[in-house]
């Protein structure tokens, strides 16, 4: 529908019920069905929107309150009792026992719940009800007089929060934080595992986009969401480790997964939980993918990851190690009893720099991921005096900080842009600087000089930043004549990776993007080859662990739908919608985040011990108490 009949989104009222010309684009952005379907009406924390002027606002309001009431936790009295009383008053009117004073009372309760609730949910969620009562008064008066019924509407519900929406895997973050606050670490971990099957791992290495979206940033500082997740996992591990849920029933179908990295493991867990037989084929001698061969021990102790993988294996997922799949014969797999295939081979092949003299086989010049893989798999590394790492991502920093621990005396990073453009996490950059790693910004190798098939030195050139490129970052340009020689015993190139895909043998060739990643249909996660799905870094290019887990979760749903012939329900898209914005007020107490201990930089560079400490349970509970509980509920009706 082109036209908006009514909108009170963000408190900005547009009323065109009588047939005006307001286009949807003129209204402040409000949530819309993600699949582009048409919508009749929605009620959400920040307003009421009608695309269809005939939508039943009274019934929508009632159902919205009913759904929102489920999010009211009951910890503060006004919110939950307020919702209950409003619902009772509605029921009264619907059964002919009410009168118009009930409407006044509902409006008053809505006002006091907004004014006096403890959390952001209570403070914000009843504004649309006030809007409905004000602008659709006649409809509600009909209800009060017994001339109108509350209809059993067919509607969808979306519950989100600024942090949840920022999380690629959409974890129920306020939910698991609340459970930690209430000393329910076990329930919290169960809730985390529904969407994140490697909680101890992500609790250590996640890039935590949730924390950037945390509403607390506007008050003091973000909650330590990542560390809270880690606390839930650590408490469990310290008490011996709980088992994952068993499938409720077994299904006949089997799924083959290529690659035991985060995407493959997430898909395996979710498929096994649905009762499928799952076999993972892993090329390396260990399961875990990039999490095991790409992340050094000082950031992620191997025991944490291996425990989490063990739990998945104990559910009945078979992992066949040292089984590299170079040729993927779909027909043969089907004959072997596999009904679907999931390609999750990651992106383990380093990109070349494209500079003169670059010769992968020369001694002293290595690829970043290969370097990390080799020493994580136990290959001895001969630590020389100096090493230079090229690149500004997390792989470059993992290489640099590992080299320091391996005994290199001088470790330098060379990066062609400035710190502002550096893709590595700020925490990583700070930790590296603390450990004495030198970063040469606006510098790029221009020539690799090889002598007797050994690396001799590296010629670099100074760079300056020009106009922004496609990625929005300013494009680095070489400064003419600024070449200089950088002496080094070893040069590690860590400027990105791409996948090494198996050759798929099927009725048609596998569609691949121009940068070598697999092309999939985002709605189904399936490739162009029937029954073959793909996800993780081999689809995204080198991305984050949580994105890989999300793709694994989605693939499991996609494969389940494919094998069972069902389709998923539509979600809402919050593109352009400010989830932090509410009309709720109330004083917020400033309170800084709890801090954890880090190993002393001078001592920690001598070994691979875990650098960052975790929260003790009591500290986790206090930190969890800072959560503002910014749950946002939206109830929406598709166009009939």
């Amino acid at each position, binding site marked *: 529908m082109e036209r908006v009949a009514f909108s009170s989104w963000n408190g900005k009222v547009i009323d065109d019920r009588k047939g005006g010309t307001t286009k949807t684009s003129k209204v402040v952005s409000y949530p819309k069905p993600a699949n582009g379907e048409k919508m009749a009406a929605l009620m959400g924390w920040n307003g009421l929107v009608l695309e269809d002027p005939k939508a039943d606002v009274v019934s929508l309001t009632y159902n919205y309150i009913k759904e929102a009431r489920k999010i009211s936790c009951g910890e503060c009295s006004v919110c939950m009792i307020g919702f209950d009383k409003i619902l009772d008053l509605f029921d009264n009117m619907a059964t002919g026992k009410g009168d118009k004073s009930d409407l006044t009372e509902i409006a008053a309760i809505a006002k006091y719940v907004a*004014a006096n609730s403890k959390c952001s949910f209570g403070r914000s969620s009843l504004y649309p009800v006030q809007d409905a009562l004000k602008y659709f008064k006649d409809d509600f008066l009909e209800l009060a007089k017994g001339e109108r019924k509350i209809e059993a509407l067919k509607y969808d519900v979306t519950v989100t929060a600024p942090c949840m929406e920022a999380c690629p895997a959409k974890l129920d973050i306020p939910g698991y934080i609340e459970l930690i606050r209430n000393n329910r670490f076990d329930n919290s971990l169960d809730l985390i595992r529904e969407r994140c099957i490697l909680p101890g791992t992500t609790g250590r290495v996640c890039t935590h986009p949730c924390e950037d979206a945390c509403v607390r940033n506007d008050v003091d500082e973000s909650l330590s969401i990542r560390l809270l997740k880690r606390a839930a996992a650590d408490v469990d591990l310290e008490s011996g480790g709980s088992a994952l849920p068993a499938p409720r029933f077994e299904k006949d179908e089997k799924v083959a997964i290529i690659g035991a990295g985060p995407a493959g493991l997430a898909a395996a867990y979710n498929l096994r939980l649905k009762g499928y037989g799952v076999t993972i084929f892993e090329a390396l001698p260990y399961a875990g993918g990039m999490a095991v061969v790409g992340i050094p021990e000082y950031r992620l102790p191997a025991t944490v990851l291996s425990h989490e993988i063990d739990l998945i294996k104990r559910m009945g997922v078979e992992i066949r190690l040292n089984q590299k799949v170079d040729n993927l014969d779909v027909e043969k797999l089907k004959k072997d009893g596999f009904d679907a295939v999931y390609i999750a081979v990651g992106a383990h092949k380093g990109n070349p720099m494209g500079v003169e003299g670059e010769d992968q086989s020369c001694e002293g010049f290595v690829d970043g991921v290969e370097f990390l893989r080799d020493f994580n798999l136990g290959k001895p590394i001969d630590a020389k005096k100096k090493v230079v790492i090229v690149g500004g991502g997390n792989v470059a920093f993992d290489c640099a900080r590992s080299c320091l621990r391996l005994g290199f005396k001088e470790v330098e990073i060379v990066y062609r842009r400035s710190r502002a453009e550096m893709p590595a996490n700020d925490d990583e950059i700070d930790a590296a600087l603390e450990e004495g790693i030198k970063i040469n910004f606006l510098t790029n190798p221009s020539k690799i000089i090889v002598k007797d098939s050994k690396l001799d030195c590296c010629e670099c050139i100074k760079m300056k930043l020009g106009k922004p490129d496609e990625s929005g970052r300013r494009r680095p340009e070489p400064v003419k004549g600024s070449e200089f020689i950088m002496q080094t015993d070893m040069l590690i190139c860590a400027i990105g990776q791409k996948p090494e895909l198996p050759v798929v043998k099927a009725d048609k060739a596998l569609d691949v993007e121009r940068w070598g990643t697999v092309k999939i249909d985002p709605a189904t996660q399936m490739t162009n080859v029937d029954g073959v799905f793909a996800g993780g870094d081999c689809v995204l290019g080198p991305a984050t662990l949580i994105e890989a887990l999300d793709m694994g979760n989605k693939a499991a749903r996609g494969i389940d739908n494919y094998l069972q012939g069902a389709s998923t329900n539509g979600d809402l898209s919050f593109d352009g919608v400010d989830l932090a914005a509410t009309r709720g007020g109330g004083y917020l107490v400033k309170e800084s985040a709890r801090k954890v201990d880090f190993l002393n930089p001078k001592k920690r560079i001598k070994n691979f011990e875990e650098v960052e400490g975790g929260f003790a349970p009591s500290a986790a509970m206090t930190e969890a108490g800072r959560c503002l509980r910014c*749950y946002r509920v939206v109830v929406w009706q598709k166009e009939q």
Partner: protein
Amino acid sequence: MVNIVIDGRKVKAKEESTILEVAQDLNIYIPTLCYHEELSSFGACRLCTVEVKTNGKWQLASSCTTPVEDGMEVQVNSDTAKETRKAAAALLLYKYPDTEAVREIARELGVEAVPAEAGTAHDCILCGMCVRTCQEIVGVSALSFRDRGPNRDIEEPEIEFDPNVCIGCGSCAFVCPTGFIQLEHEDDKRTIWNKVFKMVPCKVCGRYFAPEDQLRYISRTTGVAYSNLTTCTNCR
């Protein structure tokens, strides 16, 4: 010390003290149902809400959870604050109409049509004092809040009891404002949360004075020999 203005009085207040604490020191009454000076503040009952002004803006805040800030202005008894507290009391009364502690506060805050006679029900009003006492004072965490939210399929929030860690000390019953938590004695037995505890007689006077589990817990955590703990406070 910070300077604040509370109900028109300019006062110096200790940093990090809450508005409620400062008000109590000044004998300015603020109603509460979930506050206890020995416990951390929880902000559950919403009966202690006041108006505060910081950076030129008046906002509502629960006084038990809000620390004073330099330059802060507080109005305990503005119309808005009083109406908001009254509305909170009215809602509590709606849910727990027969519980005397709730009736009492509703009467006090001017909620209309509260029965004059004492209520006879002993509902749990989810104030969480028992949970905090068990965790912060006793240190065993036998009680925890079980609330709702997505993915938690329980109808009503409740206080959950873990019989495996309870030591039967009865602190929760002592602190409970509504009498929901019942503590019963019969001979050498104490029953609380439906768990029966064996009581220990005082070595001197023979009175059953404490559950064995509690004394063993104290012995374990303090290192005092169990045999030294079996004398009641009166005879010590």
